[in-house]
Every structure is written in structure tokens, then in C-alpha cells.
């Protein structure tokens, strides 16, 4: 049998759109997103689930796309960083990361954005300790985390204000 004979056809829901791909069953979700669908905002930093750079949302919850096979994802809603800004407008979290200088090289940033887009929905009033605890699933080698924490606090406040409006 040729290798192509093993390929399977998948129907994925990515950022609200149905995308069909034909891939080998061992293909990682991270590679399908990046290489087959061209969504290169999801980054691969370790391929063993520690660094968190590849974090995407699966049915609204953060997941490591480097530890997930694409074939597992049929019928699930996948959300990537490309969908976070709407109509060219940064989300309150993205805007706060910009204003607080919460990123440097930016390689870990999409994973952090996805983790906290979800977490701030779950917990709109996080404490610094809670933020640091959740953030510990994402490694950042540049910032020392201080400004990321400040940005998340600011984003939470902005989101609360918007919710009240």
C-alpha cells in the first residue's frame, strides 16, 4: 500500500468554518492547522505539551494542539488566535497585552491569548495569584511574566466594564 492510501478525510470546524482536509491519521492538530489550513498563528514550541505555545480552544476550552491528533477533532469546534481580533479590532485582552508590554518575541503570545480568552470568561474577577497559576501552563522566555499578569488584570477590568454596559 502506498502511504497516501492511509490518508483519511476529515471535516473540521475551525473558527466557525467547516474545513475539509485529507491527512495521515498520525498528523497532529497543530500541523494540520499550520500546514494544511495555513493558520500559522498557532505556534509549536516543544511538541511535548509543556510550553503552551500551541494552545487553541477546543469547544471553548484550552487544549494543546501539539498533543492532539487532528482525527480526534471531528465534530469539535476549534478556535485559533486568528479569530480573536474582530474586524481588525484587537480584543480587550490583546489590547491590554499591547498597552502593558506583555509580549516581546511574541512566539508564546498566541498560546497565552487563547488560554486567557477562555479563562476570563470562566473567571471574570481573577486575583493575581489565580492569574499566575493559570499562566504557569505557558512558558515565556522574554518577559518575566510581570507585564503579562498586569495585562490580564487590565483586560479583566475592561471586560467587566463592557459587560456592565
Amino acid at each position, binding site marked *: 500500500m*502506498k*502511504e497516501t492510501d492511509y490518508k483519511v478525510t476529515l471535516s473540521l470546524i475551525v473558527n466557525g468554518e467547516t474545513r475539509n482536509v485529507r491527512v*495521515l491519521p*498520525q*498528523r497532529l492538530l497543530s*500541523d494540520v492547522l*499550520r*500546514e494544511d489550513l495555513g*493558520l*500559522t*498563528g*498557532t*505556534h*509549536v*514550541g*516543544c*511538541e*511535548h505539551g*509543556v*510550553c503552551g*505555545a500551541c494552545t487553541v480552544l477546543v469547544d471553548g476550552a484550552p487544549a494543546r494542539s501539539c498533543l492532539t491528533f487532528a482525527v480526534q477533532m471531528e465534530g469539535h469546534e476549534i478556535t*485559533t*488566535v*486568528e479569530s*480573536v*481580533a474582530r474586524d481588525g479590532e*484587537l480584543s480587550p485582552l*490583546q489590547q491590554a*497585552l*499591547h*498597552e502593558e*508590554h506583555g*509580549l*516581546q*518575541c*511574541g*512566539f*508564546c*503570545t*498566541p498560546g497565552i*491569548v487563547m488560554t486567557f480568552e477562555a479563562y476570563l470568561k470562566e473567571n471574570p474577577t481573577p486575583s493575581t495569584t489565580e*492569574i*499566575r*497559576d493559570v*499562566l*504557569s*501552563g*505557558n*512558558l*515565556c*522566555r*522574554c*518577559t*518575566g*511574566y*510581570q*507585564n*503579562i*499578569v498586569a495585562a490580564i488584570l487590565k483586560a479583566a477590568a475592561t471586560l467587566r466594564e463592557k459587560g456592565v454596559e
Partner: protein
Amino acid sequence: MTREENFTHIGKPLLRKEDRRLLTGHGRFLDDVVLPGALHVCFVRAPHAHARIAAIDTSAAVDMSGVVGVFTGRDLAEWTTKLRLAPPIEGLQPVEMTTLPVDRVRFYGDPVACVVAEDRYAAEDAAEVVSVEYVALDCVTDTDAALADGAPLVDETLPSNLVSQQSFSSGNPAARRADAHAVVEARFNLHRHTHVPLETRGCAADWDAGRAHLTMHIGTQTPHPLRSQLASRLRLAENQVTVISPDVGGGFGQKIALYREELTVAALSRHLERPVHWREDRLENLTAASHARECHCRTRTAVDPEGRILGLELELMEDFGAYCFYPANYMARVVAMILTGPYRISDYAFEVKVALTNKCGNGPMRAPMAVTSWIMDGTIEAIARQLGLDPLDVRRINALTQDDLPYTMATGEVLEDITPLETLEAAASKIDVAAFRKRQAEARKQGRFLGLGFCSVVESTTYGSAFYKAAGIPGSGHEAAWVRIEPSGAVNASVGLMGTGQGYETPLAQAVAEGLGVPPDLVNVQMGHTDIAPYGMGSRGGRGATAGGGTLYLCARKAQERVLTIAACMLNLNEPTNLRLHDGQVERMLDGRWQCTGVALADVAKRAYLEPTSLPEGISPGLDVSLTYDPPPMTYSNATHACEVEVEIATGRVSIDRYVVTEDCGTVLNPVVVRGQQQGAVAMGLSGALFEQVIYDESGQNLTATLADYLVATACELPDFEIFPMNTPNRRTPAGIKGMSEGGVMGSIGSVALAVSDALAPFGVVVEQLPISPQSLRTALRGKRPETGEKERME
């Protein structure tokens, strides 16, 4: 150098231009570069620390679906030249390496073959079935073993594993020791680190057979020097190679050298006449990219009864690993050169040795001289301990004061425009040492152990060409820039730096804006493309601001002069005196104030490009200015770090309660970016001092090959940093810039180590070996009880 004291754009806290693309997933990193038809490679790596390659059987791999070919060191030896490092440095052995090993591997992870396939999955699968027959050889995994009689040679062309040895003496430290009130000895062992950029290495090589031209996409700190290396190793002319660096996900010194894998990929693209793509995985990055640090240091200090240092001697031994991508004395030399730093020490000697071992080769990592400030302030603490003095007083009595400056260090380095005593006093005052000591005493009564550590840093930055010349290192420290005002008045500029996440685009635009007289958002700074940027020396050694920003600033001033010369003609003035460009408008000094002339930069640009016949005599068309600048041999920034810790005796856990930095890094281009660099540097130092460690077992197996084993600090382990800027401009550089971003690593390693020693003083435990892991502290504390009734320290 003349300096304007009041800046319009320099020093403003502007937010970064890069952020938008990085936040929305539109950054473009190496692995996002897709070359149509690209092949993918996977390296086959040695499972032994030291072995002879007896045979390589590639047949099974070649037969696999999707595999294009498997190549070995013999192939690469035909297509490329060796790297030879033989700078004329006394005591340094000349070394050579082939592109891939041909008959012997020297460390666990050494690449022995390379599989090329249609995609990465196929390449990785095929790499599994490349069969290499090895004959294992004895190995050396530490410097003692490396230098023992009869030790196996890491590099068989050398007489021993001692690859470099230099000594130096100024004054007469031996005589000072003989006459001293006391001689204090102290030890400092810094462990092996690796850089861990979140984005691993990688490259995409694209050989255009028709044009005989190589385009190399690669995340690099030094595009032009890398291009020179690539061309030379491939026997190509420099105009046959273009290096393009996309966004880079962190470098920290790991992305300077041309590595063997990258050269292999480039050679394969030429051989196969196809684009070839390689992205390193994390295992490779941790085990085989580049390591750093690992040195054993000892000081012997002659002192008088008040703790005044009369003479200082340093012995330093670095474990360099198996291969030299840099002259082996490159990093250790700087430690020895600047050791005395903030203190007045005229009698000084050092002996620096560097040994090869069967480990991944060393390279510079953010603050190659990281250990320096721990050694120096740790020595001060040892003096205070032995003599029963207040360690802050020992610092004060030895500190350089403004009256001492400019101060020529024993090694000949000149310090000026620094403020070591001032940053020390500021940090002590921010901490409120007396209040801390009271808290510490109270806590000790309750069986809790708090500690406070101070560490003063004098950070060498910039490294001008005179430094390279004096050090005997090939290369230069000058920088090049161009500023081009386009016909519409839009401003493009370029410089030979390449950022790896620092956020250059905004501060460098501010430097151009300041020099030219336009708003920073009008300026687009282009970096990383060797066909666009002028030949510069890239980003390393805290040179971005002074060399890069300084060159751009000077170039932009030159451009402003040209603009004003044309503007004077347009305004029917004979001379451009009393004219300036401000906010993109030409202004004239009339009646003691700047007044608008109605001529804008765009009008001048239009004249320069489209109406050249109307230009003043002697002015050629266009507005394209370039300039090179060679900064001073060295600029120095300084800082004091203060760290408060608590050590949990039962578990050995160290928590950081407070962290203060007072830092004087001269004129700051952009305080947002500078603060980010300060925070990041301290974080990297603390992470290294407390958690990170490359561990090899005695057979040379790397035991820290995942991020679950090589531990990088997370958000839970690091505190907020309180940073207090104190900015004394450098008198010799454009705009008074000094350079920074490595000192934070130096200060944090020292301050946390000294804080833990302070906490454990009642147990008589002094930290002499990093990292300060729970295991190492428990080992040191086992069976020890705190002294009771300890005398309160005098403040």
C-alpha cells in the same frame, strides 16, 4: 561627542509597532515560511558521548516512501569547507571542524546523518531506520576528568583537552597577600545552562540554480556575518547569498553562529536544486543546539582590617563542551576582564582555563559574563563574614566613587559615567535594610529563615571594533545604517541589527525620528534582509542601542542636514543655519523662536527626487543617506540588585519575597522596551539560578532533554520586579546611549545566591554551587541546626 540634552522622541514611552501582528497570529516566523516544493530534513544524532562511526547503513531509510535521500558527513565534506578557528590569541589552541562528523562523534546529539524527505513526518520516520554502527569510546564529562593525565581527547588534533589558558597580573597580588590582615577565599560554581528560545532553530534554504544564488531564510541575530560564513563555507561569493531573517522567537545568543545543521541544509538545497526546510525539535534544541556557562571559580582576596581589598586573584575553569563555534576564551575572558567592576582594586591577577568535554558545545548566552557579579559581590560577602563586618559597609569602603572616575581597571578597561555607589545606596534605601534585619530576626525566632542579598553590576556593553582588535577576535563592532526619505516624504531606514524579540522597531524609529526631525510613526525601520540592510554586525553583547540606535541617529542627523540644505534653497536662503526639521516641517529661528516656514519634508523630498534641476549647486538628486559608526571599545552600564527570599528549611524551597533593581543604563531610547528587557533579564537569571540545569550522567547521556526535565521558571515562581531607573548619559556616544539587557542576568544570579546564603547563615551554609534547587539545599542542610543566640548583625 556633542549631545542634545532635551530630546523630542528619544526617551518617550511609545508602544511597540510589532505587537499587532504578533498578537493576532500574523507574525511570520521561520516555520511559517512556506517555499513551494520544499523538502524537509531530519538529522540522525549520536546516542553516545564519544564514539567512532564504524559504518552507516542508509538503505532501509532510502527505500521508504517519500524519502529523497540520506546524506552523511562524507557528502557534506565534499560540498562545504571546514570551519577553522585560529585567532592569534596566546594560549588558545587552533581548532577545526567538518560540517558533519565523518568518523567520530563527540557528544550525545552530535549529528551523523541527514534524511531528506517530502515532508517532516516521512523524514522523521526514515531517520529512525538509518543504522549507524558505533564503537563507543571513553568520554570526559567534567573538567577534572578532561584534564586528568591520560584523559581521552575530545579533539584528537589537540595535545590535551585544555583548549585555552590565559593568565594576567597587574600590580602585585602575591605581595598584597603576604602583607594582608587576612586572606579570604571563596568559591563560585555556575552550572550548565541552555538558552531555550521558545522558537527553536530552523532554516529554509532556497537554491536558485538558474541564477546560482542561495536565499537562506533563518532566524538570526547576525544576518550579515552569517551570510559571510555561509558563502565562505559553501565556496560561494558573498553576492551569491541572501540571508533573510523573519520574526525570531527569541535568541539570547543561541542564534549567532552558523551551525552545522544550517550549513548542511543550505548545501543540500544546492545539491538537490530544491528548497529544503529544517525545523529543530525541542529535544534537539535542548541537547544539541548550544549550551552555556558551567564554570568553576575561586577567588583569593587580601584585605585590611576594615575589609578594604588590597589584592584579588581569580581562578576560572570553564567546561566548553565538545565543539568551538567561538574562540574558547571568548566568554571567560570577559568575566576576568571586568571582574573588579564596581570596586577600586588595583592589584589583580587571573588565571583562566577552558577545557573541552564530551558535551554539547558552549556559546554566549544572555550575559556570557553572567557569573561575574556573583563572584565579585560573593567575595565581598565572604570578606564580611570572615572579618565580622557589615557586608554593605565592605561594599561601600571598596566602591568606586564619582571622584575615582574615569577609572582604569587593573585590566586596562576604562569606566566612566557610571554610578556604582549611587545605585547601591538607592537599592539599600528602597529595601530599608534596618527594617528587613528586624523582620529577619523576628522570623528566625519563629523558625522562618529570611535572607537579603545585594549584588552590584558593572555591565560591559556595545563592544566597539577596538575591543575586537585588542582581544584578537576576528570581527568588528562598528555598525552601518541608511536613512532614505522617499519622494512622498515617507521615511525608510535600515541598520545591520536583527531583533529576536526585544522590540527594536519602535526605539530605533525614535532614534531616526530624533535625528531627522519627524514623528516616529513616519519611520519604518527594516532589518534582517541582507540585500536591504547595510552590512552590519548584528545583535549581540548589548550593542543594539548604542551601535544600532547610535548609528541610525547619526545617519538621520546627516539626512536632516541634507534636507535643510535643499530647504534653504527653496526658501531663498544662502545657508541652512537657523533652520531645523521638526515634526516633518522646516522651521526657522526668527526673533528667538522657531517659526514655521511652510516648507514640509514632503516638499523637500519632491524637489530632491522630481525636480533635481532646481537643486542647489553641488547637491545630487534623491534623499538617500548612509553612514557607518564605530562606537567606543566598550560602554558600561551599572546597577544594584537586591533580593529578599525565604527558605523553607523542611523542603529547601526558595521563594522570592521582593526584588529591587536600581539601574543606570544611560540615555534610554524607549523606557517601555528597556523595562521589558530589565524584567526579562532578571527573570532569566533567577530561572537559571533556581531551576534550570543541563545534566549529563557520567556516560555523557543528557538527562534533561525535555522541558519537563530542563525547568524554566513559570509565572508562579517569579516575583514582580521593582525597577528604579537612574540615567547618567555616556559622554562618548551619540545621544548618551550606553547599552543594557544583560546586566539583569548578572545581578539576579548574584543577588539570589547571596540572599539564600544570608537566610541560611544560622546554619553555617554558604551557597557555592548553583542551581539552588530544593535537593541541593536539603543536602547542604541535612543534619544541621540553626545556631541559637546568634549575635544580631550590626547595621
